[in-house]
């Protein structure tokens, strides 16, 4: 646990450096090793006949960009989720986002003719929004307040419902099961940067908004009434944070499928190192999340070559030992 602002600053810088390193590793390593000079060459003097250049621009770069973006977004969404519900078990999935996205994707693949990731990105996003709205609607108390417990319970119920409907569709139709299997496991390969560009405004807007609301998030940790001291209703803040979570997590799921570990566990890791102040926590989450996903993407190529392990699997395999270690340390100090 880093205690002083200087230590935290140092931590962030080191983290950022590690993330850059992971980015380059992800781009350069794989079945075909690509060296740094080749990378610069491809970016400056792109040669359409050079296989390495093609691999770089069609496979490696998009993967690395998506991994970093999704990792950062999921981690921030998870941190905000845990703050909003004041429950360490919360993750963006609790709001039903993953389940809603999954259901709409499964419907798109099995009932509508939308079979490729580029097409069902929008179905996924829509599903995430629908599920989350359902959860928010259901968890409003008698006076319209959003108690954390009700949000979580509603989320669990909605998630289970959508997951079961999806399972129903997948079990009936083996073909659609095979089509969505990689998406269900989490996948960043086979995606074009053109898939990311329409979603960039969403990512950017949500990240910006989260930056603006750090102080309110801090106040929320102390209790609903603390927030009013900053000039806003607790409910408004929760709704805004909820919107950020939905947009970030929904877009991430739409882009890369179900990557479940990051939103739940990376915030714990970040909190263990940087404390609960959101001004440090959110950047730390972004860095840790991006780094984790980039490392996972790189490692996924080497676990059982030439097959690639789905990225959702790798993140869990890498992150869990670290997380358990932190859980033991952190709980011991409380």
């Amino acid at each position, binding site marked *: 646990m880093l205690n002083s602002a200087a230590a935290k600053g140092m931590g962030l810088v080191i983290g950022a450096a590690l993330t850059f390193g992971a980015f380059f590793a992800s781009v350069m390593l794989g079945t075909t090793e690509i060296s740094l000079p080749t990378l610069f060459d491809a970016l400056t003097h792109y040669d359409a006949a050079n296989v390495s250049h093609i691999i770089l621009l069609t496979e490696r770069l998009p993967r690395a960009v998506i991994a970093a973006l999704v990792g950062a977004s999921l981690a921030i969404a998870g941190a905000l989720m845990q703050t909003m519900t004041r*429950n*360490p*078990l919360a993750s963006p999935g609790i709001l039903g986002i993953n389940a809603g996205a999954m259901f709409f994707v499964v419907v798109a693949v099995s009932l509508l003719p939308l079979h490729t990731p580029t097409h069902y990105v929008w179905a996924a996003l829509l599903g995430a929004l629908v599920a989350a709205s359902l959860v928010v609607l*259901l*968890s409003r*108390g*008698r006076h319209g307040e959003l*108690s954390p*417990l*009700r949000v*979580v*319970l*509603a989320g*669990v*119920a*909605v998630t*289970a*419902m959508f*997951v*079961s*409907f999806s*399972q*129903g569709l*997948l*079990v*009936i139709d*083996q073909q659609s*099961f*095979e089509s969505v*299997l*990689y998406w*269900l*496991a989490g996948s960043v390969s086979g995606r074009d940067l053109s898939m990311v560009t329409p979603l960039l405004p969403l990512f950017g807007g949500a990240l910006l908004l989260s930056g603006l609301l750090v102080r309110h998030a801090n106040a929320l940790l102390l209790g609903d009434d603390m927030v009013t001291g900053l000039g806003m209703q607790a409910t408004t803040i929760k709704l805004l944070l909820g919107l950020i979570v939905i947009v970030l997590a929904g877009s991430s799921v739409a882009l890369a499928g179900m990557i*479940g*570990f990051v939103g*739940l*566990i990376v915030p*714990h890791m970040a909190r263990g190192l940087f404390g609960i102040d959101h001004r440090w926590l959110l950047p730390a989450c972004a860095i840790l999340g991006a780094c984790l996903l980039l490392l996972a993407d790189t490692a996924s190529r080497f676990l*059982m070559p030439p*097959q690639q*392990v*789905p990225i*959702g*699997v*790798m*993140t*869990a*395999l890498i*992150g*869990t030992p670290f*997380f*358990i270690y932190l*859980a*033991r340390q952190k*709980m*011991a100090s409380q």
Partner: protein
Amino acid sequence: MTQETALPLHHTIERKSARLLNSLLLISCLLFFSVGVSLCLGSFPTPPLQVLQTLIAPQSSDIAFIIWELRLPRIVLAILVGAALAVAGAILQSIVRNPLASPDVIGITSGAALAAVLFLALLSTTLSIRWLPVAAMLGALVSALLVVSLAWKSGISPARMVLVGIGLAAAMGAGTTLLIVISDDTAAMTAYVWLTGSLYAAQWEDVWGLLPWILVAVPISLAFARHADAMALGDHVAEGLGVPILRSRIVLLACSVALAGAAVAFAGGLSFVGLIAPHLAARLVGRNLARLVPTSALVGALIVLNADLLGRVAFLPKDLPVGIFVAGIGAPFFVYLLHKARYRCY
């Protein structure tokens, strides 16, 4: 609430016992009716009189085979599985003091799932599939031991246990996903159906396999139930009341693991019941564990039985896994209750 405390204590206790009895009676009736309907329905509906005849005086015929060897074991297994998972969930929610706790959360189901999928992917050619429940039980046991040992630091704090459990569940879930992704189509689908939770091909030997676990674990958990209620007030209060905290926690946890592990071993990843059945039961009889155990058992049995009935007959000729309908029925009902429960102090 205020009205209740104004009454003398023995009136309150009487009313609570009456509520318990009424609830148990009601759910038992519903369960009985569900069993009756389940016996009559299937690919070929059987008239109730014929069902009764076959039950009382079975002769060797197609109908007798269908009722005695296909429908009845599946119905009984559904009831046992629902009861076991519900009680496991009730115990966990009490120990961990978090209404989100279910056998999922501390990694038991994921451990069983990983073991089962490993078995299906790697060993199904060498060992007979009869060993699958054993493999799943071993998986549940190993993961429970892992959770406890990793969370142990001079005692088990519920919060730490849950956290470690979540981490392990994530890792084991990842392993399961990996196995499914690299398997061929039919193995992948078989594993996925198992993960969803399925009672297809339930046989009497499955029933005899599950029953002992329930007969042992449920009475033990009832015996320790009052300790659990004391612990719910806080560790310090419980110590003051002379409750052996560590021992009770371990015993109750063991009961929960045994019940959940055994149920999942025979029915696949059906654990959502362990989350919602205790909630539904608590709305009837309150959060006292001693009352909650029998009630959630019956509620869980009712849910799983009817879910399986739907899976068997609603989409003929397909036989859909029960797990789909457990959440499909349970979740909306749960949501409806949430909606109605606005006056509660959630």
